[in-house]
């Protein structure tokens, strides 16, 4: 009966109730939409970062990432590869030689990061083949072809077919060695660093040049099963310290990107709390207005035997009913708005954020748990908003309330 009373009371002033419900609903829509945007943005950023070069994980010799020492190759490569082959969720791998080097042409020289790759393997890891804007992608694990970024080509005033010399220190003596290449393709990834200072050559050629036959600096990995956060569902076991190799997920390789996604959750929680607190204050005001308008009526209700707690429950039930109406309206609106943007996307292409350039439109995406969390937050804050009016009602003396009406 108290619930029925609360529900009917709620609809005595329809305009006010709908306005209050709309305020809560809009708060809910804002939270859900912002959240889906953030999820979409994170997914986009992680995808861009892991698709471009990094992969989902990388294996190196311990110390290689810090020192970039050409001698630090993966220890016991055969055993490491055997371990990788056994993993069912591993979709692709690319064995790379990575070295700092100097690229020289008739137009000048530039320090670059040289990657020696197997073009077929690399196709499955990164998108250099798709990023070629002039010429062609590498076609063999050996040979003298070289591809580089468009910015570097502009800087060195290079054209297809130009001859280039790569200079680097070899792994045996540390002495400078040189190799002649021919420019076969120019890529544009959209990533500033890659387009301005990276070259790709055939792995065997670079291994031979650096006296690293049969040795590898880096294995980039791609998993088939990922969580919504972009981390592998079933990651590879980390190598023992005794192996002197390390296997790092992208979250460790690019902690700033991972931090952003974690910070996003925290930011959303803070923003949600502030937003819902503001809304709650408005709801408190509305419920108080309703209480003062019906003071005499509540006096009657209490005088005919409703206990203070039962009277307070009427107010709490009104808030719960208002919360449910708002949630239904809010969820319908949120699903509609999100579906609209998920269909058309939001164009952030070309904008760089935290070292990652957006290559595609952002498509809002749900985390289903949030579709439960935010409505519960709305309901919680609506209930919180009703605590003070409910307390007033609980404390209200019926005789004083009955004096509020003159006959």
């Amino acid at each position: 009966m108290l619930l029925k009373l609360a529900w009917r009371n709620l609809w005595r002033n329809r305009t006010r109730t709908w306005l209050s419900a709309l305020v809560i609903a809009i708060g809910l829509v804002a939270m859900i939409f912002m959240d889906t945007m953030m999820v979409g943005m994170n997914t986009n950023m992680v995808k861009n970062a892991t698709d471009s070069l990094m992969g989902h994980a990388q294996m190196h010799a311990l110390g290689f990432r810090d020192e970039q020492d050409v001698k630090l190759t993966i220890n016991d490569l055969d055993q490491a590869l055997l371990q990788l082959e056994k993993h069912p969720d591993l979709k692709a791998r690319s064995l790379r030689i990575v070295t700092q080097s100097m690229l020289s042409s008739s137009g000048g020289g530039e320090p670059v990061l040289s990657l020696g790759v197997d073009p077929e393997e690399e196709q499955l890891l990164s998108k250099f083949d798709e990023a070629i804007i002039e010429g062609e992608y590498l076609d063999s694990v050996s040979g003298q072809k070289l591809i580089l970024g468009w910015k570097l080509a502009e800087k060195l005033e290079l054209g297809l077919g130009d001859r280039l010399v790569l200079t680097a220190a070899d792994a045996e003596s540390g002495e400078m060695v040189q190799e002649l290449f021919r420019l076969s393709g120019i890529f544009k990834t959209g990533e500033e660093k890659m387009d301005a200072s990276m070259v790709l050559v055939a792995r065997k050629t670079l291994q031979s040049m650096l006296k690293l036959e049969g040795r590898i600096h880096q294995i980039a990995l791609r998993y088939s099963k990922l969580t919504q956060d972009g981390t592998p569902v079933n990651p590879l076991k980390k190598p023992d310290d005794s192996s002197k190799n390390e296997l790092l997920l992208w979250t460790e390789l690019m902690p700033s990107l991972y931090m952003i996604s974690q910070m996003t959750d925290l930011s959303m929680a803070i923003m949600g709390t502030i937003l819902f607190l503001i809304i709650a204050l408005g709801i408190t005001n509305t419920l108080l207005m309703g209480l003062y308008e019906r003071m005499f009526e509540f006096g009657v209700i209490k005088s005919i035997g409703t206990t203070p707690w039962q009277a307070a429950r009427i107010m709490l039930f009104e808030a719960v009913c208002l919360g449910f109406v708002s949630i239904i309206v809010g969820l319908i609106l949120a699903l509609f708005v999100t579906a609209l943007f998920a269909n058309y996307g939001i164009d952030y292409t070309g904008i760089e954020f935290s070292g990652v350039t957006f290559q595609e439109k952002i498509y809002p995406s749900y985390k289903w748990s949030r579709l439960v969390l935010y409505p519960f937050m709305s309901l919680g804050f609506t209930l919180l908003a009703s605590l003070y009016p409910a307390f007033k009602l609980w404390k209200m003396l019926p005789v004083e309330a009955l004096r509020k009406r003159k006959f």
Partner: protein
Amino acid sequence: MEETVIVAHKIFKAFGEGETEIQALRNVDLDIKRGDFAAIVGPSGSGKTTLLNILCGLDNVSSGEIKVSGRSLQEMSGSELAQFRREHIGLVFQAYNLIPVLTVLENIEYVMLLQHVPAAERKERVHTFLAELGLEGKENRFPAELSGGQQQRVAIARAMVSKPDIILADEPTANLDSETGGQLLEMMRKFNEELKMTFVFSTHDPQIMERAKRLITLTDGRIVSDELK
């Protein structure tokens, strides 16, 4: 000997303090017996409503003692008082004061629901009173759809349906025309006669004064006469 339902002993009630103090009741002694049909009369400001409010525990006394159905009201908390009123006292207000969002049926059922009366018994009691009060067929109407007289009948049904020890009615006919007021009074008198239900009214209405079995006159917060008719 008739059982005493209400015992009020040396009731004193003052509002405000110091120079602004108003003494609403002064040393009021009153016994209400089971089956009484008593009217508290007196000019405006004489303390009738204050006395009724005190008798049902809606208001506190400044000093003195009140016992209703053998229990001291001063010793009860707000929650206990509410439950006590629900079980022992039926209230009828001047302006009907039904809950506007509940139907006739729901208004009458309300107190019984708080008492956790089983549904079948609730239904039976409601229909008995609806029939007695001539409200059959109006169960699903809202108060706004009823005349003043009909609303007051529903209010009486609401007060009586929980079978309280006493009905306290604050000027129940004040907002009704004399014919409707007279009919309602007849019904209450009938319940008093047939069910031995105790009624105490505060009133200015000569019809009530005429039909009352006992007339208690208040002047300036004092009982100046208490006569059985």
